[in-house]
Structures are given as C-alpha cells and as structure tokens.
C-alpha cells in the first residue's frame, strides 16, 4: 500500500491529466515496480480463487468410488444430467430467477422514478421505509410468510420462492433505479413537458429509453439474489420436484464419502450463469450507486 502511494506522490502531474480519469494515468512508475506489483496481485488472485479453480478441476476428475483412473473426463456431467434431477432443478432455478427479475424491474423502475424526481414529505417517508426494510433480517419475514403461504396453499411451489425473492430485492432495486434516474437530467423531461408530454410519456420515452444501464444493474442484482439464495429455498421447498439448484445440491452430500465429482459438476452448472452475466455486463454493475443513494437521502 505505502509503496503505491509513494510512487503516486512522485509521479509528475501535468495539467492535461487532471480530469476525473487522471487517477490511473498519474500513478506510473518504472517497469520494475510495475512487475513487482503484477506478481503480487497475480499470487494473491490465484490464492483467492483457488477454491473456485478446485471446483472446476474436480468436476472433470473421475470419482474415486467408481473408478481408479485419473485424468480429464466429462462423466460427472453426463451422470448428473442423465441420472439425477439436476436438469429439472436448473429449469426451476431459471424460471424463478427470470420471474423475479421481470417483476422487480417492472415495479422498481416507476417507483425509482418517483423517489428520484419528487421531493416532498411523503416521498421522504417512503425512502425511510425502504431504509428500515433493508435492515430487517430475512428470517423475521420468512416465518410469517411461511405460515401465510401454508394457509394460501402456496408452500412447495416455485411461485412462493419467487414472491419472497421479489419482496427481498424490492427495496434495493428501487434505490438502484432511483440512483440511476438521478443521473438523467430533468431538463430533458422538462423540455418534453413543455411540448405537452405527460409525466407518463416522459417517463417511458425519455427516462426509460435512457436507463438501460440502470435497468441492467437492477436486473443483475435481482437475478443474483434469486439465483444464489439458499435460506428461502431451504424453508419453502420440500418436494424434490420443485427444488432449485442450491437446495438440490444438498442432496448430493452424503453422511460419509461424498461423491465430490458429481457435487462439483452441479456446482459448476450453478456458477456458470452468474459468471457469464458478470463477464459480459459487469460494466453496468456499480455498487457505488447503491451506497451513494443510501447516504444521499
């Protein structure tokens, strides 16, 4: 840390570099410092992601129980897809995650608009409610919802978990949308209103049309929440036919002698969607936005 700052303070500062992007450009040292840091970060990164690399490697190794051979094999994948319910659980997970994303974005976008554009007591009260809800533990809400859903006959359905996910993603989703809409100048809308557009018109034609990054970050957030959840699935889903992947993965663990090859194959299947989403869309995902909107109100 100190090394970097030292380097930083010695870097020549020229006027051309003093814009907002200057941070990176200014911190330039000799080749040696650069390679030293490169090696450091390489080693640290490898250490950190070693468990994840292990998952991928183990999923392609033959299981000890069935054969003694070593080497690359896809037998584990063939096994979990043909002999177990993994395909069904994958389908369940996708349905639940997509339903959550669609409803969350559709509801949070207009709500975020109100939060961003309107300044009055009602809206500050609304924003306070969001803040309080965010700090409530899921467990408190889950127990009553479990009872309510039993009365309604909703437990053990994919709908039940999707509804709970929508509820738990809502407050953050609204904040994220509000934070993004804050960055769209209101003057654009004012111009449209001058020409007789309604608020609904300016919302759909100006704000939504320019909000793709905001919508994508909200969608990614909701998707990850739904895809990665374990607690809700653990409580609400008892029947193997409605398991989502996290709950399904548990069935692979045995008391003794877990078949690590199959477990890791399912684990790889589970982590592919989030990793792909991030690899392609990570530039749309800014956590700073959430924090900023939280503190700004």
């Amino acid at each position, binding site marked *: 840390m100190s090394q970097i700052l030292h380097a930083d303070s010695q870097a020549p500062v020229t006027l051309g570099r003093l814009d907002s992007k200057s941070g990176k450009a200014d911190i330039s040292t000799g080749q040696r410092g650069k390679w030293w840091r490169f090696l450091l970060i390489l080693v640290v990164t490898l250490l950190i*992601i070693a468990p994840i690399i292990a998952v991928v490697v183990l999923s392609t190794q033959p299981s000890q129980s069935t054969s003694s051979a070593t080497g690359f094999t896809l037998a584990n994948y063939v096994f979990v897809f043909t002999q177990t319910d993994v395909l069904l659980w994958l389908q369940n997970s996708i349905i639940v995650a997509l339903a959550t994303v669609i409803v969350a974005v559709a509801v949070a976008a207009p*709500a975020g608009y109100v939060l961003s554009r309107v300044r009055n007591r009602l809206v500050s009260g609304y924003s306070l409610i969001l803040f309080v809800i965010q700090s409530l533990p899921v467990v408190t809400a889950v127990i009553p919802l479990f*009872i309510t859903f039993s009365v309604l006959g909703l437990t053990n359905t994919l709908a039940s978990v999707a509804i709970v996910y929508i509820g738990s993603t809502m407050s953050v989703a609204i904040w994220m949308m509000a934070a993004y809409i804050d960055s769209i100048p209101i003057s654009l809308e004012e111009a449209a209103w001058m020409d007789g557009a309604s608020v609904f018109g300016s919302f759909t034609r*100006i704000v939504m049309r320019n909000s793709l990054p905001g919508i994508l970050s909200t969608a990614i957030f909701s998707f990850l929440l739904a895809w990665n959840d374990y607690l809700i699935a653990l409580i609400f889903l008892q029947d193997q036919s409605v398991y989502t*992947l996290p709950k399904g993965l548990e069935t692979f663990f045995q008391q003794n002698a877990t078949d690590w090859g199959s477990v890791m194959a399912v684990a790889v299947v589970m982590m592919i969607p989030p990793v792909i989403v991030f690899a392609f869309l990570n530039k749309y995902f800014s956590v700073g936005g959430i924090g900023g909107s939280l503190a700004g109100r």
Partner: protein
Amino acid sequence: MTATNAVEGLKRARRGVGVAGRGPATPSPRGRQGRTTLGRSWGTLTAFALPSLILLVLLNLFPVIYAFLQSLQNGTPSTLPWEADFVGLQNYVTVLTSPQFWQAAEFTLVFTIVGVFGSWIVGLGLALLLRTRIPANTVFKVLLLLPWIVPIVVSSTAWNWLVATPQSPLPVLFSWFGLDNVNFLGDPLLAQILVCVFKVWISFPFMMMMMSAALASVDTNVYEAARVDGANSWQTFTGITLPMISRSTYIAWILMTIFCVNDFPTIFLLTQGGPVNATTTLIVLAYQYAFQNLQTGIGTAIAFIMTAVLVLISVVLYRQIKKVNIE
C-alpha cells in the same frame, strides 16, 4: 440514447433555446412549467409508486408486524395466530436469560467485526493495488470479484471440500508443518476462525468495488500538494486518502454490518452452527428455534432483538455519514 438526445436538441432548437440545444437555456419559465407538470401529475406518480408500496407492505411490513405478534405467542411454524397462546413478553425474558443467546450474541459480534473490518482491509488494499497501472488490470478485477459472484452454495461446497476430512487439502497442508489431525469442523475455535475467514473471502470483493469507486473520485492534485509539503506515503494515506473516502467507507461499513448480522447461509452451510454451537450466530439460532425446535415465538423474539440492535448501529453510523457530509 443518441437519437433521443438529437430529438431533444431539435425540440430545444425549435423553441429558440439555442442552436441544436447547445445555447444557454432559459431556466426560469421552463423550470416552473416543468415543476407544475410534475406537481399536477400526482395521479400518475401515485400509480408509479403504488405497486412497489403494495409489495413492500405485503412482503416486508406485514410479515414483520405478524412476526412481532408471533414473538408474543407460543406457536409453531404451522399454528395460526389465533390458535396460539398469548404469553406476552415471556419469550423475550426466556431469550435474554438463556446462556445460548448470549453465546450466540458474542459470536455474532466477533463474526461481524471480523467480517466488516477484515473485508474492508483486504478490499481497500486490493483496490489501492488495482488502481495502479498493472498489466491485465481488468482481468484481475473480474477474477477477484469471483468469490462474491459465485453462489454461496458453490463456494461453501468448495470450502467444505478443503477441510471436510483429515485427507482434505488444508489439513494435509497443516500436517506438513507438523500440525497433525487439524479438524476444522470439529474444533470450536478452528471452526470459528474458518467461518470468519470464509466470510472475509466472500465479502472483500464488495468492499473492493465500493473502495475502488471511492478512490476513483479522489482528486490527484491533493497528492501532489501533500508531496510538496513533504508528507510521506503513510501520512498521505492516513491524512488524505482515508478522510477523502470516509463517506464511502462509512456506507460500506453500514452495509457490511447488515450483511454480516443477517448472514445465514455462510455459517449454516459450512458448520450448521456447530461444533457445540461455537459458530451459532443469532440468525442461525433464530432459525434453529423456529424451524428445528418448532418454537416460533422464541425464534422471532431472537430475530427482533437482533434487528433492534442492528437498526441502532445503522442509525449511529448513518449519523456519522451525515456529519461527514456537513464537514
């Protein structure tokens, strides 16, 4: 996006605001009219906010009120509110006088402190390192986010594999250093260390992202000024960098505190709260009471006490942010 801007520009040009909308705006009349449109459309705005409000009330507020009612009753997860006995604050008394609760509270505190500051230190360190010019900078950024992106069920599986049996990689590694039979899941202290390290491992990418965003907004001019004044690198760090990112740091701490206290799967998937309840946090205890012992009243009472403390901590930190903002 560009199409819309072009259309806007045209409209503004037509109104004579400036050529292609670039000229000086005439704010006052337009602004007032704009506000009126927004002010007059309260119907639309209500319709915008209503669905979210209904969902928030039904899925967040109603359950919490219901849960509070349950915490005053002696019920199981399958009893309806009017079927259960009303016991008043008895559950709270039971909880607050049980040693199990205090043991869990203590570990929750440790887990949260290690989780928040551990992930902050690692995240900030990596954010500082990644801010410098390094080959394949972006690749590292994405790779380092992996622990946070990968589903918790997957990462706990990986960590489980690392420590599950004496033949697993970590115990074998320890035996090379003369420490035989290291049983991470069987020894209370080791299990506690394991879940704390696991939590830091999961959470640091979040801190790294928050701190990277904060560092990017620090004006590099200030560093130059500090250099001229003869500050060394540590002084620059504590005197300039830390204060300049303090607002983001407080926000990150608040969020991470909430994440840590409310974190159920990290612990449950790795140790189930064991061995001998050593890694049971309040939320795990609440789950165990509500769904394993079927004492919903006690479970919700624990959750409520936990929430009250959490809200208190959030409010204190939130005030701190406001203070920083004013300064």
